[in-house]
């Protein structure tokens, strides 16, 4: 396995009863690239994200992350290896504040363990301060520092999306999976999103896989694009090549 490959998907199939949500899909994501995953509704994109993050075990096939076989690992183990994601239908802890949302994700990087928690000892104040400070930095990065003490459910849709990204970054991931980051954003927010995703890639040395329906964003942002249709991989390559692929045009527009 080459050092340049961060995520390798090998012949992944996920069946739900008779339905092949993901059907024998293989691809490899290079270090540092922004990899787009597109396809019509129901093509299996989110299912593939669920398989990669361990939420849905694959029916067949194998997954490698940084050369480690993660096929049978549980979600929290995969998260701790450095894979973070956001959700198409936002899943924040609505009753917790923005800051608490981010701090929870930071806590896996702190030393004080469960025993300490069970015994009711306070988290080491130094450590707690560091966690809080880092969480505030991340909120600042996504432009939500002022709203740190607000309950997450009171945020606007676009702000919730940004908060989800801040929470994902708090895991210090190497691989970030974004599920429709532009959904629900207005035009201004959408235009700012490309630059933002690029900037976090630079700043955190990330490899990013993103699902997106908003075509201008995908075409302008991604280094390579994979197209799924009815669970199968029908095209893979640079944006221009994929855009002109007859199979892709057929999938989107019909015959």
């Amino acid at each position, binding site marked *: 396995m080459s050092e340049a490959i961060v995520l390798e998907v090998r012949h992944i199939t996920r069946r739900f009863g008779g339905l092949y949500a993901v059907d024998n899909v293989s691809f490899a994501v290079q270090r540092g690239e922004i990899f787009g995953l597109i396809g019509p509704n129901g093509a299996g994109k989110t299912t593939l994200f669920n398989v990669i*993050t361990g*939420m849905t075990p694959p029916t067949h096939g194998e997954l490698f992350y940084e050369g480690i076989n993660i096929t049978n690992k*549980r*979600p*929290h183990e995969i*998260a*701790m290896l450095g894979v*973070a*994601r956001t*959700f198409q239908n936002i*899943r*924040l*802890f*609505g*009753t*917790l504040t923005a800051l*608490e949302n981010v*701090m*929870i*994700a930071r*806590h*896996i990087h*702190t030393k*004080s363990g*469960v025993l*300490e*928690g*069970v015994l*009711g*000892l*306070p*988290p080491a104040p130094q450590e707690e301060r560091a966690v809080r400070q880092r969480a505030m930095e991340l909120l600042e990065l996504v432009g939500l520092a002022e709203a740190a003490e607000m309950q997450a459910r009171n945020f606007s849709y676009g702000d919730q999306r940004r908060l989800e990204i801040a*929470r994902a970054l708090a*895991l210090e991931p190497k691989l970030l999976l974004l599920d429709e980051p532009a959904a629900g954003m207005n035009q201004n927010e959408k235009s700012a999103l490309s630059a933002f995703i690029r900037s976090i890639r630079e700043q955190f040395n990330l490899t990013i896989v993103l699902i997106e329906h908003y075509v201008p964003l995908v075409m302008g942002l991604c280094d390579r694009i994979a197209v799924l249709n009815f669970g199968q991989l029908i095209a893979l390559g640079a944006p221009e090549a994929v855009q002109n692929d007859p199979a892709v045009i057929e999938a989107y527009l019909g015959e």
Partner: protein
Amino acid sequence: MKLIDQSSQQYRRLWWFASRGFAAVAFVLLITAIITAPSGLQNFFNGLAIGGVYAIFALGYTLIFSILRIINFAHGAIFTLGAYFTYFLTGSAVGFNGLLANQRLPFGLPFPIAMIGGGILAGLCGILIERVAFRPLRNKGSDPLLTLVSSLGMAVAIVNVIQLMVGAEIYSYPRNPFGELPAALNLGTFGGLTQRPIIIRTIQVIIFGVSMVLVVLLTYFINGTKTGKALRAVAEDATTSSLLGINTNFLILITFFISGLIGGIAGTLVGLSVNVSGPYFGINFGLKGLAVIVLGGLGDIPGAVVGGLVIGVAEAFVPSEQVAYKEAVAFAVLFLVLLLRPQGLLGRAVVQKV
């Protein structure tokens, strides 16, 4: 059209004032009644002691409910187990029945340590229940109702194992478990405010004190520690928590342990007050605990505490010659509160999202 709007608004405001005013008047009347009734304050203090135990016992239900959205029906059995464990850890002997007849541990622990030990053993039984009755069903993604039934099955099994091992007789804890303390405190008449002097049993003070210490510790654990924060996250969304690196299954185990720990200590405290009456010791308590959490608002920690105290005090006002109606009072209070506040005393109304 506008006229109707205005009048309905006025009507609503009037209703708001009337209902708040009514509640305030009722509250003041209640307090006055407690203070001036022949043995009002006495009953009130008696009620607080038992209410404290109701509160911590109900917290055990609440913890598990807030994470899994399932009532653990085996919690009453855990309560019983805790009381028995404490009994044996003090070095007392098993009775004449059961497979373990006349056995005793080769050592005896001082009562406070035995109580904590009994709680820890009960907590470990809680973990066992999670592994046997909850997790296998959860992994198969089965209906929560089925888990409820399997926890009920665990309760029946535990009660029968207890009967098999140590028989059905009444067990009493050693005398003076906390050393030579006066049996009761005389608080006097508060300067003639009450007709008879108020006397509080030392045991009641201990029960209430231990309960409140546990409530404070638990509240701190949930709000002030890292594990507590992770628990709140799992309670809100287990899947997302696991994607943030939180080992949800392990946290559920911890929850069952803590639930069992406080349930077991609650059992010991009640046993201290009224003896351990047999394998079915916890069954009535289990039902009353349900009333407490519904009264306080399902899954709400302060609600369970308030609910426990309210039911404890309400029961204490049942005259001793009509003691058989105690249970009825608990459920009547529950019924009345639910008529007025279906979400429970402190529960938040569930807003149906369309």
